[in-house]
């Protein structure tokens, strides 16, 4: 009797928990977190117990857990440390698919014949991975979690469940995927937008989602919804029309002279990945699995297979190729090639018809957002990281504090960036009311404020001016004194005494608005006995 599950290959997924931390040598018990683009990407158990969650800002995380060790994410190290694990698994099966550093999968049919049973396979896999991890990151690693189920998605969830169950491995019986998946929340599909809509429709679990008719799901959510629906039903996400690609889709680049440095080969890899992506798109195809192959001067052939549940976009493809090369070229001697690379090939191993992307209708990324994202990414490429910055609201008393610029990192529609105060936020006491100055000087220019007799205007301890200001002299950039301007009108002074409880960050200053006879209004700040032009009402 044939069932729809026959087409779903039984798969074993190996997950190394919290790989971003493990790869950096963090011991499981110590509080540590890994930052990517200024936000928490992973946190150790001790840090999570203190309230650190993924996506938090560094400052917030440190507030929750002051003793936490903060590490920068290092994808190159992650890839490098994971490569020996993948190489070691070749003892179990020759065909391992890596989805990202820390997680890989393989079909169990072949190795099962060799080892005799799923239990024996699990023990063998855990031994092999454990030994490889011992060698790669030292004996303090937290081991691995294994899951066996029909299809990769279910096996992945089983491996996650293995971590929670503290058993090390979870086996979902043949045909048991729907029952295993039914109680899981829709968030595990990895499609936050879809999950959000489903929860609002009252479909909180995969079981409830899978119970919908496929035709209705396609009608409402399109191709993406169909893939998610198949996953929720325990089928493979990619519909059965996956085809073997014609061989001429492979793209290759010859490297002459042979290359053994990652920076040089990564550059070639990036353009190769883009070329592959464009070729596929030209044929209306998208790639879900790609084989990265390299050939060395000594005739060695290295190959590794990368796979993703969704389709691999150009940048995702380029990332995977870079990770793979990092693993080969900088890995331990066992996996490192003995000579420079002479040829690099990308073989799209599994392609699906590209379903395209629907631009957002209510919110989401519009075509203008995507165009802007591409242009800004190009500028970052020209000028370097951190050169393009976006405003973020912080709140404060001075114009310079209220909004700050943060580097563009993820995408333009980055979640969590707040560009305006919350609607119910109370006003800051002591804030200058609108209109705000249109020019806020990064380094305030020293200035002299003089009274009618030519003496400097001072402010006493009670916040009272020594005399009415009459003239203003603004210092030039290079100490060159500019001309003197007459003060037409002025308002203030408004004293601010901030953080008086903290001797290091205590700031005491006085602000004064001055309109000069050149028509310009300026915000002067007196701090430590010196007037400066903090902002100009340009």
């Amino acid at each position: 009797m044939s069932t729809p599950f026959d087409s779903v290959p039984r798969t074993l997924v190996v997950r190394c928990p919290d790989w971003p931390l493990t790869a950096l040598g963090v011991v499981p018990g110590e509080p540590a977190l890994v930052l990517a683009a200024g936000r928490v990407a992973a946190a150790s158990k001790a840090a999570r117990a203190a309230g650190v969650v993924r996506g938090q800002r560094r400052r917030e995380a440190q507030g929750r857990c002051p003793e936490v060790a903060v590490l920068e994410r290092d994808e190159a190290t992650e890839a490098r440390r994971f490569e020996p694990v993948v190489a070691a698994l070749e003892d179990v099966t020759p065909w391992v698919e890596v989805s990202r550093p820390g997680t890989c999968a393989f079909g169990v049919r072949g190795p099962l014949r060799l080892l005799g049973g799923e239990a024996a396979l699990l023990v063998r896999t855990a031994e092999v991975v454990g030994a490889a991890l011992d060698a790669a990151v030292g004996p303090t690693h937290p081991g691995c979690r294994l899951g066996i189920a029909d299809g990769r998605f279910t096996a992945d969830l089983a491996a996650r469940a293995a971590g929670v169950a503290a058993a090390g491995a979870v086996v979902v019986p043949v045909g048991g995927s729907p029952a295993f998946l039914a109680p899981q929340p829709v968030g595990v599909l990895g499609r936050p937008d879809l999950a959000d809509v489903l929860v609002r429709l009252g479909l909180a679990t995969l079981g409830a989602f899978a119970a919908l008719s496929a035709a209705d799901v396609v009608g409402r959510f399109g191709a993406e919804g169909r893939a998610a629906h198949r996953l929720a039903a325990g089928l493979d996400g990619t519909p059965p029309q996956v085809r073997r690609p014609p061989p001429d889709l492979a793209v290759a680049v010859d490297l002459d002279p042979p290359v053994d440095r990652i920076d040089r080969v990564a550059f070639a890899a990036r353009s190769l990945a883009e070329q592959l992506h464009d070729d596929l798109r030209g044929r209306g195809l998208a790639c879900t699995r790609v084989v990265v192959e390299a050939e060395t001067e000594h005739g060695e052939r290295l190959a590794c297979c990368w796979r993703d549940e969704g389709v691999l976009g150009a940048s995702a493809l380029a990332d995977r190729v870079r990770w793979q090369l990092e693993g080969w070229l900088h890995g331990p001697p066992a996996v490192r090639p003995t000579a420079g690379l002479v040829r690099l090939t990308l073989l799209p191993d599994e392609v699906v018809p590209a379903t395209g992307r629907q631009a957002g209708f209510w919110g989401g990324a519009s075509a203008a957002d995507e165009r802007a994202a591409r242009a800004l990414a190009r500028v970052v490429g020209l000028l370097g990281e951190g050169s393009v910055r976006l405003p973020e609201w912080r709140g404060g008393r001075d114009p310079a504090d209220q909004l700050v610029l943060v580097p563009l990192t993820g995408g333009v529609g980055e979640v969590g960036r707040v560009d305006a105060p919350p609607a119910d936020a109370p006003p800051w006491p002591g804030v200058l009311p609108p209109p705000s100055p249109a020019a806020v000087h990064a380094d305030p220019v020293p200035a002299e404020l003089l009274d009618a007799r030519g003496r400097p205007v001072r402010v006493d301890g009670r916040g009272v001016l020594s005399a009415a200001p009459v003239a203003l002299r603004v210092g030039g950039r290079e100490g060159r004194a500019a001309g003197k301007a007459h003060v037409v009108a002025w308002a203030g002074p408004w004293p601010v005494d901030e953080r008086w409880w903290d001797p290091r960050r205590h700031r005491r200053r006085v602000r004064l608005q001055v309109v000069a006879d050149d028509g310009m209004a300026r915000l002067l700040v007196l701090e430590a006995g010196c007037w400066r032009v903090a902002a100009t009402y340009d």
Partner: protein
Amino acid sequence: MVRSPGHAFTLPAGLLVEPEPFDEDAIEEPAPAPRSRPRSLAEAARRARTGTPAGERTLPVSPALADLLFDGLRRGSTVGVAGPGARSLALALIAEATATGSWAAVVGDPDLGLAAAAEAGVALARLAVVDLSGPTASRQWGAVVAALVGGLDLVLVAPRRQVRAVDARRLAARARERGSVLIRIGGASWPDRPDLELALAGATWEGPEDGYGRLRCRRVEVVATGRGRNARERRAVLLLPDVRGVPALP
């Protein structure tokens, strides 16, 4: 993770290195930032628009500037802004377009007041500030501005030094081809005249008296000249900004 009917398979003790593992999946994603509630139906409708279609010939401007600009900024044109208050006027020009989905970038003006931009109505979610302080930045100025003009609807440029004629011509041609608007702050650095030139004159601040009050608004005259249909000079007196920080008619 929910308890589910999979068989837990316990590995032999020697292989379980850390009995209670840590797992990144126990971390949950943060809730998206709350969006402020629209104050009126018109505003809700405006927010629902996801960009001015490239086919439309003009980008919208705020009502105070509509008369001066023939109802909008013409796509593909260059605009020069000069005089005291140039930055405020530049912000007023981009406010309405960014609020309806266009992106804007500011190149080479790290001092631009973001609080003033927010008050003027600029959607800060669609404003990027490009820092040109890096060592190679001055050489790549032309390439950077060209890249931005190619992808963003509005590009504000405040050049530090004299712009070469060849760069100015190329950027203007690219803006025309891509339907972007190039806004030049400070007219002196440019070798040619823009399509539309806005000059500010006679600014007077209202509000402060000797020690009392605060800055409330600036009354300023804007003179628009230029080429083509802008050839005939037009003048308007504006509050730039008014007491809420918004550009307004007196």
